[in-house]
């Protein structure tokens, strides 16, 4: 029996059984009700109670067995597991049905079940974070077995040697990640130079000046910017903006590479505008109107009120929004994969090409090096650092925003 058949039998058996359990549980409750007993819960609730107790043990066994198979532990054959599960279901059913009595608090039991189900769902997000960490950590550790963390973090030279043929000396490789992070930060800085002023001023306009109609028009427009997929931005950066930057640079007698850092930086900035503007918009709107009125009542003009009262009050929130924007820019992949260079380059000149952490990750994992070569493993090390950096930024800004919101609630 293959997996899908097993699943079919499993659920094919479970669903009708649960239905029967429901009917029987409900019937028993109705009977005692008819006999005049004062039932604690509704008859249907007893039905659900019995069905749940029937299905739960079977599901538990199924899940345990499935996990065991996946992890590679030897388990009895599928038919055996199946019959075992059905047996457990039958026992659960019998016990639950026996307990259906007027004093049984079926509603409370269901309530509990719902609670734990919801709770279990909320664990998925935690598991996701663990999943990310696990999937990066082990490979990253393998890498750090070969390359010292210190060299990785402080080295300014990134030049892995191909490890295709036997005899190539991998020890000649250098994995100094500074140039990669420098490139990443350069592009991020360019992006934020675009995104923060434009996003913030646009947010101010929309929350303080714009009429209702302008706002209902402009907001969705900005949301479109947020909805454009990054692969599309990447194409635009590579095909349209990069050549434009080169032409511009040439016009001023400057030399620009086709994979300059400026083009992806600019486009990334545009991508981040809506993040900044909508977060700032939130934050500015959270400033109570009473502060504005206080300033107006003293004879302040609108811009004075905004600049001197609203913005300073909103500053922590805006700061946090900017941090979130930065974290997004650091981790952005498609734009730089398509439009930034591959050359680790430590420079201040944004017209030169430079590479970024995410570009390197993608390049190493989709490139030709073997899976256990240091360069491939380096991708995980880079991923780990990236995760830690963005995690830190996210945490700071999430906490700041929470605090900020609380202080104005």
């Amino acid at each position, binding site marked *: 029996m293959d997996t899908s058949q097993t699943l079919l039998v499993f659920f094919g058996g479970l669903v009708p059984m649960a239905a029967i359990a429901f009917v029987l549980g409900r019937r028993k409750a109705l009977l005692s009700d008819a006999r005049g007993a004062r039932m604690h819960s509704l008859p249907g609730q007893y039905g659900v109670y019995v069905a749940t107790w029937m299905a739960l043990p079977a599901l538990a066994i199924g899940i345990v067995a499935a996990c065991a198979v*996946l992890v590679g532990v030897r388990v009895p054959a599928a038919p055996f597991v199946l019959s075992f599960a059905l047996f457990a279901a039958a026992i659960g059913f019998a016990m639950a049905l026996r307990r259906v009595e007027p004093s049984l608090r079926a509603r409370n039991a269901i309530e509990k079940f*719902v*609670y734990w189900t*919801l*709770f279990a*769902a*909320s664990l998925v*997000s*935690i598991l*996701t*974070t663990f*999943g*990310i960490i*696990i*999937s*990066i950590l082990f490979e990253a550790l393998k890498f750090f077995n070969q390359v010292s963390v210190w060299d990785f973090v402080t080295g300014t030279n990134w030049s892995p040697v191909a490890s295709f043929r036997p005899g190539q000396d991998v020890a000649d490789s250098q994995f100094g990640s500074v140039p990669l992070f420098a490139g990443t930060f350069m592009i991020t800085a360019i992006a934020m130079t675009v995104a923060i*002023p*434009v996003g913030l*001023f*646009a947010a*101010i*306009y929309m929350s*303080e000046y714009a009429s209702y109609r302008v706002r209902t028009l402009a907001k*969705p*427009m900005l*949301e*479109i910017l947020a*909805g*454009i*997929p*990054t*692969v*599309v931005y990447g*194409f*635009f950066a590579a*095909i*349209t903006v990069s050549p434009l930057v080169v032409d511009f640079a040439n016009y001023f007698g400057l030399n620009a590479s086709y994979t300059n850092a400026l083009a992806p930086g600019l486009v990334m900035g545009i991508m981040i505008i*809506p993040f900044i503007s909508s977060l700032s918009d939130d934050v500015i709107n959270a400033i109570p109107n009473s502060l504005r009125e206080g300033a107006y009542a003293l004879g302040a003009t609108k*811009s*004075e009120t*905004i*600049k001197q009262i609203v913005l300073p009050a909103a500053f922590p929130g805006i700061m946090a929004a900017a941090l979130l924007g930065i*974290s*997004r820019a650091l*981790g*952005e*992949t*498609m734009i730089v994969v398509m439009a930034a260079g591959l050359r680790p380059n430590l420079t201040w000149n944004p017209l030169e090409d430079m590479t970024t952490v*995410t570009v390197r*990750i*993608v390049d190493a994992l*989709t490139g030709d090096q073997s899976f256990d070569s240091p360069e491939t493993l380096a991708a995980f090390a880079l*991923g780990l650092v*990236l*995760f830690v950096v*963005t*995690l830190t930024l*996210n945490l700071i800004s*999430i*906490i700041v925003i929470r605090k900020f919101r609380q202080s104005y609630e």
Partner: protein
Amino acid sequence: MSQGISLTPSRQLKKRYRAERRFKAYCVGALLLAMAFLVLFFADMIRQGHSAFVQTQIRAEVTYNEDTVKFTSEAVDESIAPLVSRAFFRAIPRRVENNPDLMGTTQSVWLTANADVDQYRKGYTDRLEPEMLSALERLTSEGNVGYGFNKGLFFSGDSKIPSNAGLWSAFVGTFYVMLVVLAVSFPIGVATAIYLEEFAPDNRFTQAVEININNLAAVPSILFGLLGLAIFINFFGVPRSSALAGGLTLSLMTLPVIIISTRAALRAVPQNIRQGAQAVGASRWQAIRDHVLPLSLPGILTGTIIGVAQAMGETAPLLLIGMIAYIPDAPTSMTEAATVLPAQIFTWAGMPERAYVSLTAAGILVLLSLLITLNATAVILRNRFERRW
């Protein structure tokens, strides 16, 4: 006693008003800049992509006989054959097989030209051999060359022959992937949101979960790709490149979006509705199920649509789980290899042939119209059902 105070602007106030106007101009300017970019972007995409929606077609006499089934390029005139897309010739044997009546006939049909001819006519490249050029000129003067709607763009799968390449398999793949995303992230996301908003005690653990969710919403997408590769494919053995693998990976990315917007929707339902229900003897869950959820449904759906739209445009994680590959046939199940629209766009963007540039832009236009439709639906839903309490 202040007598006769002046209520007209003083000189100093006039100066303040100038600063006022300047500041407002910055704000308007910022918004206009963002809008201008949007316009520029769309104009550019349309400029690059519009031509891919039509294709050069050439009318020619096609002869079907034993010979031409074998040596397919002889089915049309020798001078015309080099202008016609290879996709036509290679399909001749099967076409005859499926429709034996064709055998021995000669028909005048419109054939799709190959990419070189197409690109030449659209003014992108100029590299036709002299014989081809003269043949093309002759055909044009005879009225046997024209543009036709590029049906293949929508109804055929990927191809290495640009004139034959289309988005169909990516459409179907996207559909499957989104099914998975919905099936996984909607129930889990809504359940998580209900738990956090309605049930969770205010303790460290809950706070950790909340912060974790907000963090997940901002974790670089490429890291989700690493997760998909390590956990779903390598550990759980989900088939590589499959809609299931892609969908599960994207589900985890969509989850925070749905959770956050569902929580907002739940929070918008006034507390007194819950209290009213509980005060008449409804349990907590009954109050939520019967009153809160129905009221917050529009908000939940809006968030879900936006989350799905976001997932639909995601590419980076798919790079790592094998969905960026040559997959021309539409998948027929969750476990078959599938590709999605943004992945297809990425593939085309990297193709060396020039014809793929406009195909890429056309693909982008198609994807964007899908996404904008989805988002517009969400906005309309939100405006329609938004309730002020």
